[in-house]
C-alpha cells in the first residue's frame, strides 16, 4: 500500500465522518413524502425534537400546568426561567414519564408519543434528565456511576454478563476528562463535593448519549469557576444534542442562552432572547410584583 493511497483513504474517512456529524442535527434524514417511519427512531425532519401542546396537570385541584404548549428544535439550547411554582419541574416530570398529564400531547420527534412510555423506556429512547438535587449513586465509585449510565442493553441478563469494551472505556475516559473528575475515578460518589456531584450527574447524562437533555438547575451550589466551566460545556453540547435548561442564575443564562422561555402559573408567559423577556412588562411584574 502506497502512502498516497493511505492518505486518500484517510481523506475519504474524514469526509464520511463530516457527513455523519452534519447529519446528527437533522437526524440524518431528509423530509420525504413516502418515507417509512421506523419504530423507536426519533424523527426530527419536521424541525422539532420535542413538542408539547395544551398540556394540563392538576394536583388536588391546583393547576400545576395550564394549557402549556412548547417546542424545541433539534440542537437547540433552550433556557427556561420562571418564579417558584411556575411548573418547571412538573414539566420535566411530564416529559420524562414521571407524571401523567390529564390532557394534552407530548411528542418526541414527530412520531413518538411520550405519554405511552414509562420512565426507563423514555430514558432509553434518548431523553436524559438531571435532577434539581444532585442524584448520584453514593455507595458506588465515580467510575461505577458512569459505567451504569453508559448507553447499552439495560435488561437484566446482559447486565449480569456485562464487560466494558475498549470503545466504551475510551468514551468513559473522555467523559471523565470532560467533567474534570479524572483524578477521582475510584472515589465514592458520596464523598464528592456538591459541585462535583453535579458534574458527575451531568457526566452520567452524557454517558447515556441522549438526544435531548433536561437539566434542572445544573449550576446550583457550584463555585463561579465551576459555573463558567459548565456554561462552556453546554455550549459545546449544543448542536449535537438538544438541551433544556432550567436555571435561576441569570448570569449563567446570559452566558449560554439563545432563546429564553418564561413559565408562569403553568404556561408560557413570554419567549425571546434574555434581553427581550427581561423588558417584557408581564415578566417584570411576576418577578418583582410578588
Amino acid at each position, binding site marked *: 500500500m502506497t502512502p498516497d493511497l493511505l492518505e486518500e483513504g484517510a481523506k475519504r474517512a474524514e469526509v464520511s465522518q463530516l457527513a455523519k456529524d452534519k447529519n446528527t442535527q437533522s437526524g440524518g434524514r431528509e423530509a420525504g413524502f413516502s418515507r417509512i417511519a421506523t419504530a423507536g427512531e426519533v424523527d426530527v425532519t419536521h424541525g422539532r425534537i420535542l413538542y408539547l401542546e395544551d398540556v394540563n396537570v392538576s394536583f388536588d385541584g391546583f393547576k400545576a400546568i395550564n394549557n402549556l404548549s412548547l417546542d424545541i428544535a433539534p440542537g437547540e439550547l433552550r433556557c427556561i426561567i420562571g418564579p417558584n411554582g411556575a411548573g418547571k419541574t412538573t414539566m420535566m416530570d411530564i416529559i*420524562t414519564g*414521571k407524571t401523567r398529564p390529564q390532557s394534552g400531547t407530548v411528542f418526541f420527534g414527530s412520531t413518538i408519543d411520550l405519554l405511552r412510555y*414509562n420512565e*426507563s423506556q423514555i430514558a432509553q429512547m434518548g431523553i436524559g434528565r438531571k435532577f434539581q438535587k444532585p442524584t*448520584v449513586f453514593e455507595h458506588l465509585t465515580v467510575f461505577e456511576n458512569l*459505567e451504569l449510565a453508559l448507553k447499552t442493553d*439495560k435488561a437484566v441478563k446482559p447486565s449480569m454478563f456485562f464487560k466494558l469494551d475498549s470503545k466504551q472505556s475510551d468514551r468513559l475516559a473522555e467523559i471523565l476528562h470532560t467533567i474534570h473528575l479524572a483524578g477521582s475515578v475510584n472515589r465514592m460518589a458520596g464523598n464528592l463535593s456538591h459541585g462535583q456531584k453535579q458534574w458527575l450527574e451531568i457526566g452520567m447524562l452524557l454517558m447515556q448519549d441522549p438526544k435531548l437533555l433536561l437539566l434542572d438547575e445544573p449550576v446550583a451550589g457550584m463555585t463561579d469557576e465551576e459555573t463558567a466551566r459548565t456554561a462552556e460545556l453546554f455550549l459545546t453540547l449544543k448542536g449535537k444534542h438538544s438541551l433544556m435548561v432550567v436555571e435561576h442564575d441569570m448570569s449563567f443564562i446570559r452566558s449560554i442562552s439563545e432563546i429564553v422561555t418564561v413559565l408562569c402559573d403553568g404556561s408560557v408567559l413570554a419567549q425571546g432572547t434574555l434581553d427581550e423577556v427581561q423588558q417584557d412588562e408581564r415578566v417584570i411584574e411576576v418577578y418583582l410584583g410578588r
Partner: protein
Amino acid sequence: MSSEQLILPTPAPLLSRKGWATFLMVLIAVCLVAPLLNLLVPQSSIFHMSDFAVLLIGKIMCFAICALAMDLIWGYTGILSLGHGLFFALGGYAMGMYLMRQIGLEGNYKSELPDFMVFLDWKTLPWHWTGSASFVFQMAMVILAPGLLALVFGFFAFRSRIKGVYFSIITQALTYAAMLLFFRNETGFGGNNGFTDFKRILDIPVTSQNTRMVLFVITGAVLLGFYLFSRWLVQSKFGRVLQAIRDAETRVMFSGYNPVSYKLTIWVISAVMCGVAGALYVPQVGIINPSEMSPANSIEIAIWAAVGGRATLIGPIVGAFLVNGAKSWFTVAFPEYWLYFLGAMFIAVTLFLPQGIVGLVRKIIGKNRMEGKA
C-alpha cells in the same frame, strides 16, 4: 486528549488470592475434616466432633443460607423482607412431603397414606400430593414453590411500586397468612403438627450417623456455592444496579433501567435460596411445622444479617453463626432471657454498629471502603 495517563479500574476478581485460600480451607474443613472427626475419630478423643455439633452446625449453615439470601435483597437492594421464613418453610414442606411418602407402610397406622391423613380419615391422597413420591419432582418443587410465589407476589408488589416499610409489612402479613393456612388440617400439610417421624431419604435411613454427615457436607457445599454465586452477582453490573436502586431508584429509572425486573430477579433468587435452605434443614432436624412461618422467624433472619453486617455477604453468614451459637448456649443457660438478649443485641447493633460486625472489623483493619463517611 490526555486520556493516556488515566487508568480505569479493572473488574475485581471473584475472590482475592487470600479469599480463595480461606474459601478452600473452609471447603476442606466442611467436606473432609468434619466427617473425619465425626465418623473416624473415637468418641473418647477430644478431637471427636459430636453428633450434636454436626446437627447444630448443619442447622446454622441452613440459617446462614437464609441470611445470605436476605443480604442480597436487603443489604444490596434495600428491600427489607420480613417474610423470608415463608420461603424457607415452603422449601422445607416440599422436602417434608417426599420424606413423608418415604415412610411407606412403617407409619403408626401401617397405611400407604401419611399418618395424619389416616387420622383425618382421608381415603386417597389429595391432588397436591400427586408427585410427592418422586424425589426429582419434590426437589423441583423445592425451587418452584418459593420461586413461583415470590415471582407472583413480587411482580404485583414491585409493579405497584410498593416500597420501604409498606413492603416489609406486606411480606410479614403474607407469611402470617400462610402460617394460618398451614395450621388448618384441611390444607393437607399435617396441620399444626406438620411432618415428622421421617424414616428414610432415597431409601437410606435418614437418622443414621452417615446420612447426617452427608447432609451436613451437602449443606456446607451449598452454602459455599451460594456464597460464590452471590459474590458473582453483586460484582457484576447487575449487582451494581441493585445497589443503585437502593441508593437512588429514580436515577436508575432515568438512566434507562427498569427497576421492576431487577428487583423481581433478585427477589426470586433470594426466595429460592431460602427454599433450598429449608429443604436441607428438614431432614436434619426431622420436623417441619407451620411455626417456621411465624413472623418472628422471618424477623430473626433480618437480625442475623444486620448483626453480621449488611451488603458484605460474609457478614450475614457470620451473623447467623454468632446469633444462633449464642442462642443455643443462652436457651440452655438462661432460657427465659434469650428474647431479651436478642432484642438488646439488635438494638445495640442498629445504634452502634450500623455496618455490623464485619463493618467493625473492617474499620479496625482500616480497609473500610466507606472511610470518612458518617
